[in-house]
């Protein structure tokens, strides 16, 4: 039995939704959705749960992750309830529920807290640089070290426990017995979706967007790989250097296009932007462009005189790694892939 709670809507509003309560249950949104199917019918069902405030039911549902936000539902909704935007907000809300530190919720709900955290990080980095007398060598060395440590720490301390929590809410809590085999045979799904996001293609008209996303994911991951494991900024190997230029270039070009879309609101998907969306694309863009320019300065030998540039890059990097990756929109990429995986686990267990 569900317990009604009309106040949930107010809570959700902080995660970016509005007007979804205008829904009069016509079901158009579900009818036009290209990703919904008979077993997993959405988005009306999620709109309904949100209107009624059935938090537990939403928390245990994978449906919000099954939506890739083409925005068709919002375009066809006669009540202008923006079901697509609601699904997006539910993903933000779910992220805040999965996150054991509760910081995700805080950052989603308040811009101020984001800014405070960003400023604190900037101050920390500058203090450190001051501490080592603004020695380029020191700062770059620690910067590189930080990348490795941060990736490991964020995964171990925050993301992995959160994924376990997600698993608990969506699979384990219901008490359903799932054979280990189901987990194993479904693993393919996890990586397939993580690296290809191929479901986007099922939303009609979205081939270009999918391609952009794919390039971004691959570009981003390889940039990570080049800077962290190939130590791009200290590399001497020509191939590595050129490769680094290419991937960082790709990242900032694609993200520039995303930012541009959000500004001119050209498509349903970019019509509404929550601050978490802005932070995500803008930081990615800066990461790409500052990495590119830093390497350029290294190559033309003026980095010594322009330490500030590396400092900016480092600040952006730390903010990205400590705030946006563990608590912001970045996690969606992870949760979404796991959602596809869990869905597969559940279906293969039921077969």
């Amino acid at each position: 039995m569900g317990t009604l709670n009309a106040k949930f809507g107010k809570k959700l509003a902080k995660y970016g939704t509005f007007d979804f309560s205008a829904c009069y249950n016509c079901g158009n949104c579900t009818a036009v959705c290209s990703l919904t199917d008979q077993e997993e019918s959405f988005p009306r069902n999620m709109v309904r749960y949100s209107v009624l405030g059935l938090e537990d039911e939403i928390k245990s549902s994978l449906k919000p992750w099954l939506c890739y936000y083409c925005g068709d539902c919002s375009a066809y909704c006669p009540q202008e309830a923006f079901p697509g935007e609601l699904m997006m907000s539910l993903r933000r809300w779910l992220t805040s529920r999965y996150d054991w530190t509760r910081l995700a919720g805080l950052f989603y709900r308040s811009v101020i807290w984001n800014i405070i955290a960003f400023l604190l990080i900037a101050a920390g980095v500058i203090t450190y640089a001051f501490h080592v007398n603004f020695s380029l060598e020191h700062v770059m060395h620690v910067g590189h070290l930080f990348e490795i440590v941060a990736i490991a720490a964020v995964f171990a301390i925050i993301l992995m426990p959160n994924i376990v929590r997600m698993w608990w809410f969506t699979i384990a809590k219901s008490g359903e017995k799932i054979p280990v085999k189901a987990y194993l045979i479904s693993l393919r799904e996890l990586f397939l979706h993580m690296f290809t996001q191929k479901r986007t293609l099922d939303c009609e008209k979205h081939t270009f967007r999918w391609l952009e996303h794919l390039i971004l994911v691959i570009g981003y991951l390889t940039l990570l790989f080049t800077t962290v494991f190939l130590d791009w900024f200290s590399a001497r190997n020509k191939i590595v250097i050129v490769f680094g230029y290419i991937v960082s270039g790709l990242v900032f070009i694609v993200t520039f296009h995303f930012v541009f879309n959000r500004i001119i609101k050209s498509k349903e998907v970019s019509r509404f932007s929550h601050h978490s969306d802005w932070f995500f694309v803008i930081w990615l863009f800066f990461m790409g462009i500052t990495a590119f320019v830093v390497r350029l300065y290294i190559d033309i030998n003026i980095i010594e005189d322009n330490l500030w540039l590396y400092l900016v890059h480092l600040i952006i990097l730390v903010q990205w790694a400590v705030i946006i990756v563990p608590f912001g929109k970045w996690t969606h990429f992870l949760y979404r892939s796991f959602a596809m995986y869990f869905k597969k686990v559940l279906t293969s267990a039921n077969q």
Partner: protein
Amino acid sequence: MKKKIGVYICHCGGNISDYVDVEKVYAEVRNEKGVALAKITMFACADANQKEMEADIPEKDLDGVVVASCSPQLHLTTFRAVVERAGLNKYDYVHANIREQGSWAHSDNKSGATENAIHVVKAAIAKVRNAESLEPIKISSVKAVAVIGAGVSGMRSAIALAKAGCKVYIIERDHFVGGRVAQWENLFSTNETGEEIIKRLYNDTINNDNITLYTGAQVLSQSGNIGSYRLKVQINPGFVRNSVYSYEMDEAISVCPIKIPDLFNFGFTQRKAIYRNHSGQLPIMAVIDDENCTRCGDCEKVCKDIDFSQQKKEINIEVGSVLVASGFDTYTPKNNEFGYCVIDNVITLPQLKRLVAMSDRHLEYKGNRIKNIAYIYCVGSRQLDGENKYCSRYCCTAAIHTATEIRRKYKEINNYHFTRGVRTYGKQEIYYSEALKMGDVFMQSFDNELPEVLQKGNKTFVKIKDILTEQKELKLQADLVVLVTSMVPRDGISVNDLFKLPKGRDGFLKEIHLKLRPVETVIDGITIAGCCQGPMNLTESVNSALSAATKSYSYVSKGELELEPIIAKVDKEACTWCDACFKACPFDAIIKVEEGFKVFARVSDSICKGCGMCLPVCPKDAIELNSYTNREIEEMIDMLASD
């Protein structure tokens, strides 16, 4: 006895002639007794044929006409008009239906259809042979209308009638005007308050010289009929001299020792034996409720306007038409219907409206601050098992409108609507849309699985299987449960019985035809307006009020009325006054007349409807019905039964 009859037999394109051998009918009837002219025509109703008939009548000196064609519903008036244009009386025309009751009905049997047509036409000829010319009955009509009830419908129709120049008497049972609307604050769909609307209507009413308003009044008896209804009206005193509210009246109210439940607030509060409903109540005065006053005299001591010497008055008025606008009652849920009377915080929508009107800053009920309100719809309407099958129409919108008003007035209210499908038809849809946007939650159940109201400890829960959420069971802890109750017919309205007004199966007053004659009753001269006819919102009530006013006005405007002359007539010589007809007449049209030693029955021209109930009961066969005389009917039967 007609001697020169014209008979026209119509092909109706082929509608008739495809099955009925029209030539044969013509051959069979053209030599009937009295027939001077017989013709076959392709379309009898066509202009050309109508002109031909108009020419034939004077040329052949015809004194009676029969057209054998379609149903009289379609063209009786057409051909009556033709004969009238040619100088005959319209009752010199008889219509024979050989299409709906001939060719169409017997399309499988052509020779049978032809036989049938021959008999029907011969019967019509027999009837017209014996037909008598008749003139419409003219009666005089008093240019005044009595309006029963001073609710919105009553006052609005009175104003319309008065403006048209007709005298109007409003007879209101209560001491105050406004009916139900006086009880509501903000109203959909204009967001005026009930008080504002009533004030406007009341001012227009009392400032119009043509209108006389009697409050505290009721009709005791009536006699007469359309054009002249004589009403005896009793006016009950309010025992207060001045019709201006004074400080002393406030005093008088506060010293009065009697306390009774205040029905204006649906029993939420108590009132004194001297009272007024609220400060905006019109007329602005206090009145003493005779039933509960013990004459202790306390009020008299503080207020010089109290006057216990006032007496009941009886007055007689005469009007040409009566417009009934006696309104509705609100449904009182049965004991434990959704917890009513059993669970503390279950109230009805009308009660909620009064509660809101009386609560300023916080919405509180029995000392508890209200946050979560559950509205249960269709209580007393659309009942699967109960008597009220109908939808009360006003309630979805009223509940939603009230809920959004509450949200605006008080902070932190959550509205939960347990509906059976929202019916905010027409422009009212806007309120539904607005409520949704404000975050009101709507659920829906089927009529065989209604929501349940339960009490656990001191908490009240409402449960529903919501069909909008895959029949999921949902539960709400509600601070207040509001039953959205229906409109029901007013109990014990004396006027209904006095005028013998028929009621529909739903118990509301019944119109003649819902679409075509929506405000007339079968009692000539009596119209109905507003919620006495069935559930309506204000817009609809006023629509019907204005339409009833127009109809009533049409009865009295000329000072004279023409009635259909098809009525019963008593042969005074044959009648012995056995009173059989008197008992049989459903309209009380039979009058006992004494002339010297002779006692006999007479039929009142203006009351008789020509139903014929009196004819067969008369042992002396002394009664005849115009246009359906024994001779006409007998000869028709002879014809129909002949070989």
